[in-house]
C-alpha cells in the first residue's frame, strides 16, 4: 500500500475503528452532542458526564467511516479528567494536526496518529466530526453540528 495510505490508516486508527472504545450510551450523561455529515452519512452522538467543570466520563454511539469512528473512539479516551478549558485547548491542537499535520503544543498523545489526514482533504471532515460534537456537548449546545 502507498505510504500516504499507511499514514492515514495508522494501526491505532484501524484498531479503534475495528474495536471502538467507550462505544455505548452513557445513562448518567449530563450533556450530549450530535455530529452529522449528511453527504457521508456519518452520524455520531457524544455523551459526556461532567463533575463540575471536569469531564468525568465520555462515550459515543453512531456509525460512519473508519476515520470518523476511530476519531470518536480516541477522543472519548483522551478527554476524561480534563476541564472544559483543557478540552477546548486540546480541540485546537487536534484541529491543527488534522488540517495541517503539524503538532502544536504537547499533550496530543495517541491523537498524533491523525497527522496523515491532511493529505486527504476530503477526509478532514471525517476526522474532526466527533470533536465538534464533543465541543457542542461540553458547551451545552442544542443543535447538531456538521463538518461538511
Amino acid at each position, binding site marked *: 500500500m502507498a505510504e500516504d*495510505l499507511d499514514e*492515514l490508516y495508522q494501526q491505532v486508527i*484501524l484498531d479503534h475503528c*475495528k474495536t471502538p472504545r467507550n462505544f455505548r450510551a452513557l445513562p448518567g450523561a449530563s450533556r450530549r452532542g450530535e455530529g452529522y455529515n449528511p453527504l*457521508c452519512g456519518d452520524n455520531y452522538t457524544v455523551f459526556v458526564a461532567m463533575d463540575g467543570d471536569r469531564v468525568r466520563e465520555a462515550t459515543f454511539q453512531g*456509525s*460512519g*467511516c473508519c476515520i470518523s469512528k476511530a476519531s470518536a473512539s480516541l477522543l472519548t479516551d483522551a478527554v476524561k479528567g480534563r476541564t472544559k478549558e483543557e478540552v477546548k485547548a486540546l480541540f485546537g491542537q487536534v484541529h491543527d494536526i488534522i488540517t495541517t499535520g503539524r503538532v502544536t503544543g504537547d499533550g496530543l498523545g495517541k491523537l498524533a496518529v491523525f497527522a496523515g489526514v491532511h493529505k486527504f482533504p476530503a*477526509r478532514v471532515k471525517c476526522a474532526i466530526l466527533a470533536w465538534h460534537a464533543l465541543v457542542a456537548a461540553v458547551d451545552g449546545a442544542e443543535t447538531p453540528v456538521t463538518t461538511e
Partner: protein
Amino acid sequence: MSRTPDWAGLRGDFPILDQRVHGQPLIYFDNAASSQKPRAVIDALRHYYEHDNANVHRGIHELSNRATTAFEAGRERVARFLNAGSADEIVFTRGTTESINLVAAAWGGAHIKAGDRILLTEMEHHSNLVPWQMLAQRTGAELRFVPVTGDEGLLDLARLDELLTPQVKLFAFTHISNSLGTINPVAELCARARARGVTTLVDAAQSAGHMPVDVRALGCDFLAFSSHKICGPTGLGVLWGRPAALDAMPPYQGGGEMILSVDYQKSSYKQPPHRFEAGTPDISGVIALHTALDYLDAIGREAIFRHDQELAQYTYQRLAELPNVRLFGPATDRAGLVSFLLGDVHAHDVVTVADQRGVALRGGHHCNQPLMKRLGVASTARASFYFYNTRAEVDRFIEVVREIQKFFAV
C-alpha cells in the same frame, strides 16, 4: 450495426484518460456521476467561441445568425436522438434536475391539487423526489411509492395496479437506477399508467446515451436527461414533452426569449419549446451536445449498451467470487454499473484506498438516501462504466478490491 466498434481507438479520443493519478494509471469508474468528453466535443466548444459566438434569436448580424442556426440544429439533433416527432418537443434546461423541476412547477402547478397523488418509486434519485415533495407541500397532494424488492433492486410490479388509484395524476420513475443498476420496463410502466389516464415522466439520466431511447416506443409524456453524463458539456439538460402536454403548460421562468409581447402590466408567451426557455441559453453547450450525439450514434447505442453491460456483468461475477462482498441490484440484465460493500468497511474508506491506486469510484448514498435506508445501509461503493472502459481495467480493479479487503481485514 453489427460491426464491432474499435473500442481501444475510441478510448484514444478521450485526452483526460491518458494520465496517472497518485502515480497509477487512471481508471475512471465514476461514469454514472459524469462521463468524460471526447476531443471532438472539446473542439466544438472551442470552435464556437473562436468563430461563431453571439447571442441567439436576437441579432440580425452574421454571428448571431450562425449561433442561432447552430443552436437550433442542436435541437433538431436531440429530437432525432430521441425519435421525437419534432424539434418543438425539445426544451433545453440546466440538467435532468431542472427538467424535472420544470415539470413539477409548470405542469404540476396547473394540474395537481389537494388530494391528488403522485406516484414515484423507492429507487428515485433525489432530483426525482424532492421536486415532487415540494409540489405536494404546495398543493396538498400526496406521494406514493412503488416498493423495491430488496438487495436485488427490482420494482415490485405486482403492487403497481393497486397503487395506480384514480387519485394518481402523475407517475414519475427512473429508467435506470443510478445506485442499483436496475433497468425498469419503461414501456410497460407507461402503458399501465396510460390505461388509467395517468401522465408519465421518465428520468433518463442514466439511460440516454447508454442505450437506445425512443420516446415514441416508450410511450411516456415527459422524459429528462443531462448532457454531461453522455459525453456532452456540464450545465445542460433536455426535457422532452409530448406536444399536447407542453402546450397545456404555463411558463416556468419569465424573462427574455420566452415572450411574444410585453406590456408593463402583462405579457404574452411564445409557443413551446421557447415558452420554457427564459434568458440566454447554454448555446455552446447545445452545439457541443450535438457533436456528442453524433459521436455516440457513430458508435451505436446498442453496441455501447452491450459493451457496458458485459463489463458490469463481468465485474459483478468477479466481485461475487470474493468473500464478504455484498452486491446490490439484479444479478442479470443490469445496466453498466455495480454497487457493493466489502464486509463492514465504510464505502468512503473503500473509495479512498481505491483512489490511491488510481481507481475513481463513487462512495456514498448516491442521492438515494431513502433507498439506502430501505436497504439498511448508510452508503455503497459504486463502479460505473462507459464504452472507453476495458476488461483489463476491471481486472486491475478486482486486484485493488482484494488489497482493500486485506488492508481492512475483511
